[in-house]
C-alpha cells in the first residue's frame, strides 16, 4: 500500500513535469493560430476558436522567411562541416600522436570553454571591421566554429582514446599514411560521437542570436533567430503572425531533434565518461 503511494506520487511528479516542459510547444502552436483578441484574452490552455492558418501566410509574406532560412541553413551547414573536420583532426592528434605538447593543446581548448562568448563580442567586432568581414556570413561562421570546437574536441578525443589501436597499427604496416588512416578508419568508426557533436552544434548555432545581432546589419544576411527577433519587435499588427513566424523558425530544429534525439544521449556519455 505504501509502495503504491510512492509510485503514485512519482508518476504525478513525472506528469506535472511533462506538462511544464511541453507546454511551450503547445503554447506556440496555439498562439500561432489565434486572433489578437484570443491572445490578449489570456486563455492559455484554450485552443483557437477558428484555426487561422492565414497567420502563416501573412508571416511568410511579411517576414523574409525563405531568405532567413537560407542564411541559417548556409551558416549552420558550413559551421558544422568545419567543426567536425577541424575538431576530429585535433582530437585524433591529441589522443594518438606521440607529441609532447598534446596535453597542452587539450588544455588550451579546455580553458577556452570557460571563456564567455560575450566577452569577445567587442574585440571581435573591431577585428572583423579591420579585416573587412563585418556584416558578412564569415563574421558569424568563424566565431561559431571556434566556440563550438572545445566541446567537440572533448567529446571526440574521449571516444578516439577508447578505440583499440590494433587496426591503425596494421594499416600502418600495410603502408597507409596517417591521412589515409584518419579518413578510412578513424572517421567511419567515430560516427556516433560525430552525430552527437553535429546535433549539439546544430542546436546551438541554429538558435544563436547575440552574435548575429551584433555582427550582421543587412536585412538580406540575417539568420532566423535574429530575423524572428526583429519580426517580433518591429511587427505588431497581428500577434498570431509573430507566433506563426516563431513556429516556422523553430520547426527545423524541433524536427531534427525528435528524429535524432536518442543519438545525442549515446555520444554525449561516451565523451563525458571517458574524458
Amino acid at each position, binding site marked *: 500500500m505504501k509502495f503504491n503511494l510512492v509510485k503514485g506520487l512519482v508518476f504525478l511528479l513525472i506528469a506535472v513535469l511533462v506538462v511544464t516542459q511541453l507546454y*511551450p510547444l503547445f503554447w506556440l502552436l496555439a498562439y500561432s493560430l489565434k486572433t489578437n483578441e484570443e491572445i490578449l484574452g489570456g486563455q492559455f490552455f484554450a485552443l483557437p476558436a477558428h484555426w487561422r492558418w492565414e497567420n502563416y501566410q501573412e508571416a511568410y509574406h511579411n517576414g523574409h522567411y525563405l531568405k532567413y532560412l537560407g542564411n541559417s541553413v548556409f551558416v549552420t551547414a558550413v559551421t558544422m562541416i568545419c567543426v567536425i573536420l577541424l575538431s576530429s583532426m585535433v582530437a585524433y592528434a591529441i589522443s594518438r600522436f606521440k607529441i609532447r605538447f598534446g596535453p597542452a593543446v587539450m588544455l588550451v581548448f579546455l580553458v577556452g570553454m570557460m571563456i564567455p562568448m560575450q566577452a569577445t563580442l567587442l574585440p571581435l567586432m*573591431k577585428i572583423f571591421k579591420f579585416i573587412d568581414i563585418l556584416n558578412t556570413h564569415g563574421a558569424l561562421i568563424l566565431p561559431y566554429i571556434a566556440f563550438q570546437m572545445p566541446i567537440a574536441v572533448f567529446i571526440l578525443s574521449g571516444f578516439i582514446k577508447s578505440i583499440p589501436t590494433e587496426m591503425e597499427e596494421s594499416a600502418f604496416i600495410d603502408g597507409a599514411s596517417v591521412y589515409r588512416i584518419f579518413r578510412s578508419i578513424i572517421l567511419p568508426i567515430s560516427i556516433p560521437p560525430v552525430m552527437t557533436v553535429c546535433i549539439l552544434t546544430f542546436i546551438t548555432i541554429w538558435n544563436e542570436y547575440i552574435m548575429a545581432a551584433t555582427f550582421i546589419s543587412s536585412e538580406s544576411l540575417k539568420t532566423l533567430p535574429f530575423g524572428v527577433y526583429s519580426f517580433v519587435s518591429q511587427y505588431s499588427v497581428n500577434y498570431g503572425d509573430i507566433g506563426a513566424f516563431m513556429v516556422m523558425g523553430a520547426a527545423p530544429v524541433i524536427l531534427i531533434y525528435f528524429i535524432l534525439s536518442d543519438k545525442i*544521449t549515446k555520444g554525449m556519455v561516451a565523451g563525458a565518461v571517458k574524458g
Partner: protein
Amino acid sequence: MNVLKVPKLAIGVFILPALILYICIVFIPILVSFYTGMLDWNGIGETKFVGFENFRNLLFHDPVFWPAVRRTLLYAVASMVEIPFCLIMAVLLNRYVRKANTLVSIYFTPVILSVVIVGQLWKTIYNPTSMGGMLNEVLTSVGLQSWTHTWLSEPKIAIYCIYFVSLWQYFGYHLLIQFTGVQNIPNEIYEAAKIDGADGFQADRYITFPMIVPIFKISIVLAFIGSLQSFDLIMVMTAGGPAHATDVISTHMYNSSFLSMKYGYGSAIATFLVALCLVFTIFINAVMNKVEKRFG
C-alpha cells in the same frame, strides 16, 4: 598512434588549422579586450590611454557593478541547486518508468528552443493582469489575488523570475546527463547488492550516488560556467532593466559598450568577467575533486 611517430608535417596539418583559428577568435580578442580596457574610447573618435582608471572606476565607483556580480553568483548557485533534483528525477525515472528515454527527450524540449521563443513565452506568462498575464490569471483563479505582481517590472523580484526561467529551461539538459550516467552503472552491481539485502533507496545510497559522482561533477561545472556566462535570456527578457535590477556582469558589459558607447569601460568589464570565470572554474574544480575523492 602512441607507438608510431608521424611526420612533423602531419602533426602540423592535423593540429594547426584548428589551433590557429581558435587562438585568433578566442584568445586574441581577450588580450585586445584587456588592452582596450585601459583606453578612454567611444568607439569612433580619439582614444586616450588611461591605464587602470576604468578598472578602478569599475571596482570602486560603479553602483551597478557589484549588485550585478552578486546576481551573477546567485545565478550560479541557483543553477547548481537544481542538479541534485535532476539526479533524483533520473533515479526515479530509471526505476519506475520502462521507456524513460522518451520522457527524457520530452523534458529536453525547452533546451532546443531559441531564447527568443523562450523569452517571448515567459514574457506573456509574467505579463501584468491588464495584458492577460498567465501567472496572475492563475493566481487570481485560485483566490490568491494578493500574490499577483507585475513580475518583470518589479525591481525586487524580476531577477528571480528570470532565474526560474533558466532553471526551467535547463532542467532537461541536466536530467539528460544524470540519466545517462545512472543508466551506465552496470546492472550486476545492483543484483549483487540485492543478494546482500540492499535494495531500493539503500542501493541508491551506497551504489548510485557514489558511482554517479563524476557525472554529477560534469553537470555542476557546466551549470556553473553556463550561469556565469548567462546573457541572452536576460537580454531578451528585460535587457537588464528595470533600472539595472536584472543586470548581470555580461549584460552590464553589453549595455556599457554597445548602448552607452563606453568601449573602454565595457572592455574592462569583459576582462573582469573572463578573469572571474577562470578563477571560479579552477575553484569549483578543486572543490569537486575533493568531493570526488571523498565519495567516489
